[in-house]
């Protein structure tokens, strides 16, 4: 856009800004002839100027609406009250707004289920550390044995920010709670070397850049588990997860595994349990297969231990990650994962103390 055009816009800008304070109806500035004239002019311009000019005029309009909104806000300001008082002046005691009835209150089902799961792991001696919602490339990938540019990264459709970290790398919205593994291993390394195995569960929100439907959300909750000690076996991993599931479902279950691939575990497994809802007789929850896939897990790759400064010849460990929504959807037969973050009371109040309360 040439000098002349931008000056023209700036002139209109100062004229209109000055006029704004004099106007009764502030919003009328957005309908001013000057602004209209600027828009009118677009069609007379040569093509190469149109886009930049149009954008500049739109920006001006945006700024003006902002000013209008602000002045309206102050013009429409409410009467002042004593904000330090606990209730309103001249209010009668039984008409003061207090709390709503307890039976309409509800805890979010993800949070109550997460708490239940955490309780089991706390009882098994696991500490709890929450996951991050922004992390760097090193923790999300590098420290987990995903080399730079490795095709295994393609399995994680990550969101990234336009902003970059000190190494010039884009920040990442973590696609798994494993993003915390390296920090946790480093943090608890002294305990490990003093003879206390590392046992931590990591709940948190994770993000995947994928199309959303009834079964897929771009934002969901995971829980990671990490255990490192001496003489840790694959059987330890399977047994730990099995007793957790048995405690959670208060039922005996059978376990099935499938080999899998994660760069940060070797071997890597997918872990299925016998359906606790039908005891393998076949039901809708398990799609009449008798089995339900629950989580991914494996023995921590020695490189992951090494990256955290842990002697991989002396210590082994296992890790797993599972989705929290899955537990709740299975339990309640929830059909659409998008309901969890919908903020709809129709959904939330079904989990209320009083079975929904009154509207």
């Amino acid at each position, binding site marked *: 856009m040439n000098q002349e055009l931008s000056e023209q816009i700036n002139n209109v800008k100062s004229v209109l800004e000055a006029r704004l304070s004099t106007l009764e109806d502030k919003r009328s500035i957005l309908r001013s002839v000057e602004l209209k004239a600027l828009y009118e002019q677009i069609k007379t311009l040569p093509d190469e100027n149109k886009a930049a000019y149009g954008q500049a005029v739109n920006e001006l309009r945006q700024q003006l609406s902002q000013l209008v*909104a*602000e002045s309206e*806000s102050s013009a429409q300001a409410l009467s*002042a*009250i*004593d*904000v*330090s*008082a606990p209730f*309103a*002046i*001249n*209010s*009668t005691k039984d*008409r003061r*707004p207090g*709390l*709503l*009835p307890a039976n*309409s*209150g509800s805890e979010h089902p*993800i949070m109550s289920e997460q708490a239940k799961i955490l309780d089991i792991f706390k009882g098994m*001696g*696991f*500490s*709890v550390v*929450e996951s991050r*919602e922004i992390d*760097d490339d090193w923790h999300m990938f590098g420290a987990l044995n995903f080399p730079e*540019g*490795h*095709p*295994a990264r393609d399995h994680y459709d990550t*969101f990234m*920010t336009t902003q970059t*970290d000190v190494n010039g790398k*884009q920040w990442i919205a973590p696609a798994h709670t494993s993003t915390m593994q390296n920090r946790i291993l480093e943090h608890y390394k002294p305990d490990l070397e003093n003879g206390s*195995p590392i046992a931590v569960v990591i709940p948190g929100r994770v993000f995947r*850049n994928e199309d959303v439907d009834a079964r897929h959300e*771009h934002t969901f909750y995971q829980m990671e588990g990490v*255990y490192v000690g001496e*003489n840790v076996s*694959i*059987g*330890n991993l*399977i*047994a730990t997860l099995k007793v957790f599931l048995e405690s959670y479902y208060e039922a005996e279950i059978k376990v*099935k595994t499938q*080999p899998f*691939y994660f760069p940060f575990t*070797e*071997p890597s497994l997918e872990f299925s349990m016998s359906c606790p809802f039908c005891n393998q007789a076949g039901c809708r929850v398990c799609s009449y297969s008798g089995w339900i896939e629950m989580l991914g897990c494996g*023995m921590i790759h*020695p490189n992951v231990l090494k990256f955290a400064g842990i002697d991989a010849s002396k210590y*082994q460990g296992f890790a797993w990650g599972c989705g929290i929504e899955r537990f709740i959807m299975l339990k309640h037969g929830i059909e659409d994962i998008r309901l969890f973050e919908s*903020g*709809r*009371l129709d959904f939330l109040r079904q989990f209320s*103390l009083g079975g929904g*309360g009154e509207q």
Partner: protein
Amino acid sequence: MKVSLNWLKQLADDVQLPVHESDLIDRIGSQLGQVDSVSDLRPLYEKAVIVKVVQCDNISGSDHLHSCLIDDGGVFKGIEREDGRHVRVVCGAPNVAQGQLVVWLPPGAMVPSSAGKEPFILESRKLMGVISNGMIASAKELAIGDDHDGIVVLPDDAGLKAGDSFMNYLALDDLIIDIENKMFTHRPDLFGQLGVVRELAGIYGLKFTSPKWYDENRQIVSGSSNIDLTIDNQLIDDGCPRFMAVAIDGLSVEPSPLWLQSYLARVGIRPINNLVDVTNYVMHVTGQPLHAYDLDKVKNDHSVEFVVRYADAGEELELLDGSRVKLLEKDIVVASRTKALGLGGIMGGADSEISQTTQSIVLECATFDMYAIRRSSMAHGIFSEAVTRFTKGQSALQNRAVLGYAIDLIKRLNPGASIISEVLDSLSEQIKPPAEVKTGLNLIETYLGSSRPVDEMAKMLTNVEFEVSSNEQYLKVIPPFWRTDILEPEDVIEEIARLIGFTNLSQQLPLRRIAPPEQPGLINLKQAIRRLLVSGGANELISYSFVDAKLMQASGQDTAQAFKLSNALSPQLEYYRTALVPSLLSRVHLNHKAGYEHIALFEIGKIHRLDCLDEDQLPLEPERLALVVSAVAKLAKSVYDGPAYYQARSYLDFMLGGLGIDPAVISYLPLENTLKNKQWQDSSKLYDSNRAAVVMAGDQMIGVIGEFAYAPKQALKLNEFSAGFELDLSQILRLRQTHQLTYAPLSKFPSVVQDMTVETSAAMTYQELSLKLHKQIEQLMPQDLDLKAKLIDIYRSDEAPDSIHWTFRLTATSIERTLTDQLVADLIDKLKNLLS
């Protein structure tokens, strides 16, 4: 990765795979990788019969239909036959003729190509007045090829006769097992049928021996050297560690034989011609992609020079699929001296494509760096079968075997074919045979949870062609040349554990000390808050960490301070939120609309700001609690006195009280104070300064509470009766630890309760008055006397708007004596005078 069971069996003719198919599929699932689907081809082909066309006449009045009599050897039962023997079928194919051996789908059979769609079941019906029983099928209808122009005509010299089973002829009594690709990210060998069958043998404890042709050192004998084939491999040290090629003459391009077409078709590959099909067939056997160039299109006199290099800036290339790509600097191209011929390892170029007239080719068998292939594939959005395989890191050591096998097949299909160049082999010195991996027997025992006989473990590995030796301490293995994934002892252990079956290992819980895990302060606090607010009738919701610019602008948040996604799913999810209250506000209107007239919503979550980084420059993630109350106008008016602000306050006071935090530590400052704190500065635009306050604890800001400013209220369709707060949970946690209310011992003496009304100027705030009051109480009260004051009423009359009457309920208690009403009344009088 689609696997054909019959293809596997054919590659392993000396190993007897078990016949029990469901067990086989279970074992693949538990010891190889997740089975996505299994499709049984038998129902598609079991009714198809090979028949002879004994008579073929045009149907008068039709320009293409033929009335045919076929001989099915009498195998099909229950059909009307002419002359007691032959069956009448109408056929529209132009190539049908008397004497042909063709494939007949009798009435009751399903057309195989309709499987998985709407199944088309054949019957007997009249066409142009002629009865037609079933159909004579084309390759496309049989789902064994792409040819739709005519029916399949079977060769005369294949020993076939009328009445033979078509299914048996092409081994279509097959299971197609689709195994999840992700499993094989580190197993390039499993992208070929050969790798899968070897692994299956291993799973069943059977010794597998690769076919003779699969030999890394095999000789490829050149017939003559008419063509001078050379290479300038500029990327031998990084992008292209091996490039083999050979020129072949004497070819004629035709459709492939049916067996070849049908194997490709059943794993989802479209047959094209007898040259391209061979490259695809060999790739599906070995996992190694190949490429064929039309020799005439790449040669210069009698020489062909290949250059392997990175693309030049601005270079363009038309690919086999007809698309034209602008090449990027780090794309690997295979080129002639003058121009790029193909995008190496991803897709060949259109200029040198095999055509119907091709008579000679250059066959390439090269290895490209997986990282480079991934980078270019992502950049151009091309995800070919070759990309799938090269990005797993194919072993460069199998190229000679693969090239030799491809030449064998080409010769089989083209008896006149001969090699007319030297075998070109540009091989990087960095390519070494797999190194020996030494794995401690102790480590194996640790992972497995028990010791296993060394011989047993050795046998498992030799079954899949590892070289194994051992001593008292170590199991030593040399992986076969096609395995690129066995680098560490743990990789060997994975192999052993998987072949045993993970769930067959002994399952024991880890032993641990009984020390309790540390208490997670913040998590416990959040849980306590949640329980409190829920008991106060509030609903917890969870909303996305990502919000849109519109919501941020509507609620006065500065997008310039927000982390922005470069690849957001939609504009609604573009920014990391810098406050929680706006997310809650965006959920208010929809819930009122759904019929909830009075709501209290809360959320606990993290916020992010560009200017909030820790000492390592990592974004801080302050944890916040936000709560919003809102009621529709009619309800608010009929039920409540006063503004919504005080309902938000009720929740705040209730929550802090429930957490045991001393209310005396909390104070309220004007909203402008948020401007001093960058984490909170945007709040000044969200709230109405006349009805909002900064919540302080001593000199620490812990949050903001208030009603919302006009602009956000308009933009978010909020009710007049709406208010909320947002608090920093680390501050609440600190308060909970430092300002916990403590127990006061009960007195043996009764308390005296009296009300006191104080009149002040209208400018006086509760906070000021309360401070004064407590100061005076402290000064006036005798040592043994505890006086608690609770505000119960605030009154201002219309007649005297300049003054306010505050009524406190005072409760006086002594731990030493019985108080008299008079004593308390005197004290209150003194207090009152001091305050008014």
